[in-house]
């Protein structure tokens, strides 16, 4: 069951999962992707979900997004939800600005306001002057920036991110981490960020939640008390990342047994 409460968006969005399970298929071939997961993301928090592949991270996001239904348990979300995928998923027949404008249109923003608002959002992600370009004319990093601008155009309270920087090179990813920090600073944005890159999780999150594989369960969580601005190559980030990696390895060796 998914409960969505849009009225609560004034105070910022939040996500609450209570003993959520998701089973794909039936009978002997059924796969239990998520098992009794309980997780709360309070308003304004940046939570990173980390786990080996097959731990149901993406499934979890789909449940929160309402793109899929849980088998049991409750998923409750307050506020508007937007999602970013590993691929930018931009519409190739529209320009960068057109993609952002379509999100504004879907939200019911009038024609006259769409253009200036889209320009402002592209400016927010450092893409002013690229509004007229089509997705294929932009680099991978720029496309993800447009996708971020499009997500912001949805005026979401909760932003779900499914390994959004996974396909980018390290330099571009670094820049986009800074960008995300900056974009978030001005807003009351609750973020649930899925990644398999431990350092990325520590660099970005207020909290890192570790999931086990098959079925996905919450096995541990770590607060990230490191002051911002952070750097992915700073000592405290590396130190905590090492600790989390050890925990993750331990979990994976359990799984392999």
């Amino acid at each position, binding site marked *: 069951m998914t409960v969505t409460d849009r009225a609560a968006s004034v105070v910022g969005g939040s996500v609450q999962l209570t003993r959520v399970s998701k089973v794909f298929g039936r009978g002997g071939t059924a796969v239990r992707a998520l098992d009794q997961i309980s997780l709360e993301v309070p308003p304004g928090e940046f939570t990173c979900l980390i786990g080996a592949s097959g731990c149901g991270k993406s499934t979890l996001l789909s449940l929160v997004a309402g793109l899929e239904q849980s088998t049991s348990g409750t998923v409750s979300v307050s506020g508007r939800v937007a999602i970013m995928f590993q*691929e930018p*998923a931009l*519409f190739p027949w*529209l320009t960068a600005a057109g993609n952002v404008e*379509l*999100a504004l249109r*879907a939200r019911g923003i009038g024609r006259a306001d769409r253009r200036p608002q889209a320009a402002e959002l592209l400016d927010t992600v450092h893409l002013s002057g690229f509004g007229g370009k*089509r997705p294929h004319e932009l680099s991978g990093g720029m496309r993800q920036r447009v996708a971020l601008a499009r997500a912001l155009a*949805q005026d979401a309270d909760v932003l779900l991110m499914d390994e959004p920087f996974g396909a980018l090179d390290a330099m571009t990813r670094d820049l986009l981490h800074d960008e995300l920090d900056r974009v978030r600073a001005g807003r009351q944005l609750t973020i649930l960020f899925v990644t398999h890159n431990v350092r990325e999780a520590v660099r970005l999150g207020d909290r890192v939640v570790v999931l086990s594989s098959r079925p996905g369960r919450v096995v541990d969580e770590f607060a990230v008390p490191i002051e911002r601005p952070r750097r992915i190559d700073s000592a405290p980030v590396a130190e905590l990342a090492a600790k989390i990696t050890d925990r993750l390895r331990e979990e994976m060796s359990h799984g392999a047994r």
Partner: protein
Amino acid sequence: MAPGDERTSLPAYAERLAWLEAQDAVPPQEARVRRLAVRFWAALWPKVLAIAIVLAVWEVIHASGWKKLIFPGPGGTLANLWDQLRTGLLWHAIGTTAERAVIGFGLAVLIGAVIGGLVSRIAPLRAAVGSLITGLQTMPSIAWFPFAIILFGITTTAILFVIVMGAAPSIANGLIAGVDYTPPLLLRAGKMMGLRGLSLYRYLILPASLPAFVAGLRQGWAFAWRSLMAGELLVIIANQPSLGVLLSTDQDQADMQSATAIIIVILLLGILVHTLFSTADRSIRRRWGLAGTE
């Protein structure tokens, strides 16, 4: 000026560089015209060469004396074509044929798009007629003529009917394929944006299916053109000169020169329309980044 100055004074260096570049630069307008001319010539010369080779081979066969009495040479045929182009009859015939092509293909697009749209949306309808559409697509449209002639008589309607039967299934299938292959990721993104129902169709599914739809149109056109030519040879309407009527008359009078000239006209019209579709297809691909920009 001391030699050292040149190295140290940067502004002077930049100025000199700008001056040098200005010497090389061609005014943008002139450069564009030149680029266009180069591209035009690059596209043109292979075609000119191919035509020259065909004419040469044709002339050699003619000169060899094979079927000397009936097989025309390129010279006589082209002269015949030129003569016909100066009379009103050929133009009248081209007009009739083109009009039928436009009306028939237009109807096929309309009907094909409506059927394709409905079938792609309504699951039971797809289960009912999905394979029927594919079956119709593979059916040689000439087989429809007895049916059409009995139903509509020797009329333009009979010809148009067969054009629609030939072309509409391809057009419907193009649209259905386009809707089916809308990338699931884009659908998820669209739904998360809040696109639902009709707006999901208008802003996401229809634009996403455009390339497949254009491919369907192109194939539909090929079927329409074939059906039309077959129809004009089978359904001869008195006092309505068309390319088919001219061909049929030439056959009756064993006028090989004129028949060949008309075939050339039909070929050229086919190439012309094909070029229009290719241009549309290419411009979509370029806009979407599906093809390299040459």
